[in-house]
């Protein structure tokens, strides 16, 4: 957008608080932010262009590398889209194992998001506590799938590797420990007076604005839109009796608290899965064929949609990926940042929406 403004303060692309490069240009009066715009293009790899014309076996690994933080859900949504398109059945044990791995991935992503926020508002102690807990979650992920990040655990018709009984025991023990830790950190965050000063009432996203910007995930749920959770439409989650949680405030504090609450919810979901995990096969088999589908799932950051068209040999002809960060960063920059009182709150507000630039630009 070519506009002439009085004062435009660029933040980024290389910024101490940001994990990935992006550039936010804030038009300010004094320190009061009047409007903000985003300059992308630092991470554009053209994954959708690479994917076109390739067999699904290759696209599967490319889909995982759309985003390294939430790689499991990209794998899951792509594979489930293929399964739905070619009506491939998944054994029940495999479906529950997928939920376990997905919830572990959601936990580590939420912990990382909250760590980034705590780091940005200079509460490093809580940030380091959270990073330590994240290592425990990643250990469990590695024990089950064999890799910390980009595990490629799901394949059409099931999962790659079974959960051994000793791993299940270890997972249960870890969940108990993590529950204790996360509850403690939630209390620290909720009652910290200095945290409240930096978080409450800053970067407010109203419910109408969230609807208009199509905000999704914890960002939308913190603004009172619980129905935005795609897990409500997933058959396995429905069987587990999943109900989304939501908050009404819509400020930075609510978004971070939302993630803390969802971590505890993930722990209870994993426990429920372990309780009802039946003995049986983990792979049903089946080969993806021709078809066209639009399929969405709930990533840690919100609704993730794949639009896929394949031919009879299982080659991907056309693909479009709509990642949650696109909507959330837009909601953040055009609604939350408007009216932020100080430049110091710009990075913290931006980080509170859990931006993932690699997802956004693909």
């Amino acid at each position, binding site marked *: 957008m070519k506009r002439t403004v009085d004062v435009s303060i660029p933040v980024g*692309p*290389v*910024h*101490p*608080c*940001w*994990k*990935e*490069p992006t550039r936010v240009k804030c038009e300010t009066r004094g320190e009061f932010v009047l409007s903000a715009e985003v300059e*992308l*293009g*630092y*991470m*554009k*790899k*053209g*994954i959708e*262009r*690479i994917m*076109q014309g390739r067999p699904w076996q290759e696209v599967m*690994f*490319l889909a*995982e*590398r*759309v*985003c*390294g*933080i939430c*790689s499991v859900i990209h794998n899951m949504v792509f594979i489930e889209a293929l399964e739905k398109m070619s009506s491939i059945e998944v054994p029940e044990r495999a479906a529950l194992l997928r939920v376990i791995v997905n919830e572990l991935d959601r936990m580590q992503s939420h912990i*990382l998001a909250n*760590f980034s926020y705590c780091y940005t508002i200079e509460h490093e102690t809580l940030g*380091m506590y959270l*990073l*330590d807990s*994240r*290592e425990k979650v*990643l250990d469990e992920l590695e024990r089950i799938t064999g890799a*910390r*990040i*980009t595990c490629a655990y799901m394949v059409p018709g099931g999962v790659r590797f079974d959960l051994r009984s000793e791993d299940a025991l270890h997972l249960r023990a870890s969940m108990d420990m993590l529950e204790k830790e996360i509850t403690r950190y939630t209390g620290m965050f909720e009652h910290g007076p200095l945290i409240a000063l930096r978080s409450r009432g800053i970067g407010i996203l109203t419910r109408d604005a969230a609807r208009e910007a199509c905000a999704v995930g914890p960002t939308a749920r913190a603004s009172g839109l619980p129905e935005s959770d795609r897990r409500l439409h997933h058959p396995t989650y429905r069987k587990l009796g999943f109900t989304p949680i939501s908050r009404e405030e819509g400020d930075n504090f609510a978004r971070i608290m939302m993630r803390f609450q969802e971590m505890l919810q993930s722990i209870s979901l994993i426990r429920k899965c372990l309780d009802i995990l039946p003995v049986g096969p983990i792979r049903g088999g089946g080969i993806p064929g021709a078809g066209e589908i639009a399929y969405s799932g709930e990533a840690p950051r919100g609704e993730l949609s794949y639009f896929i068209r394949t031919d009879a040999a299982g080659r991907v002809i056309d693909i479009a990926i709509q990642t949650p960060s696109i909507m959330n960063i837009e909601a953040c920059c055009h609604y939350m940042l408007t009216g932020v009182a100080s430049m110091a709150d710009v990075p913290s507000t931006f980080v509170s929406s859990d931006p*993932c*630039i*690699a997802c956004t630009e693909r």
Partner: protein
Amino acid sequence: MTLLQSLKNFVRSKSIHVAYVDVGSCNGCDVEVLACLAPRYDIEQYGIFVHNNPREADVLLVIGAYTPGWEGKLEGLWEKIPDPKVAVAIGNCPISGCLFNRPHTLVDPPVSKHIPIAAQVPGCPPRPTEILSAILSVAPLVYRDYEVRK
């Protein structure tokens, strides 16, 4: 070597400032660099301080396969880092482009075409311990007798 020089060598090897820059990866390597900060790996016990300010950095961790948005900017960033400096490539992307180096892609690997790379840590993504040991082994070599060599 003078006593002063050996003192300098010793002190500098215990104080390394690190900046990281992502030039177009899947951000899996970014989170592994962040994981180095965790109390389990505790990068600061080795005297390494991670902050993202190139103007104070000694070691630049380059992640990713060089997207068009960084055209001219990565070189500018490299110039802003004070001497002695060193760049370490983290992950497969800056080395070969990994999965992204295919027809119709926008990326332009390897990064060594654009800035000098001293060490490479392959992996997709590499483990935090590998990143840590790479920084620890490359940094002292940069500092050793810097004034003498200059």
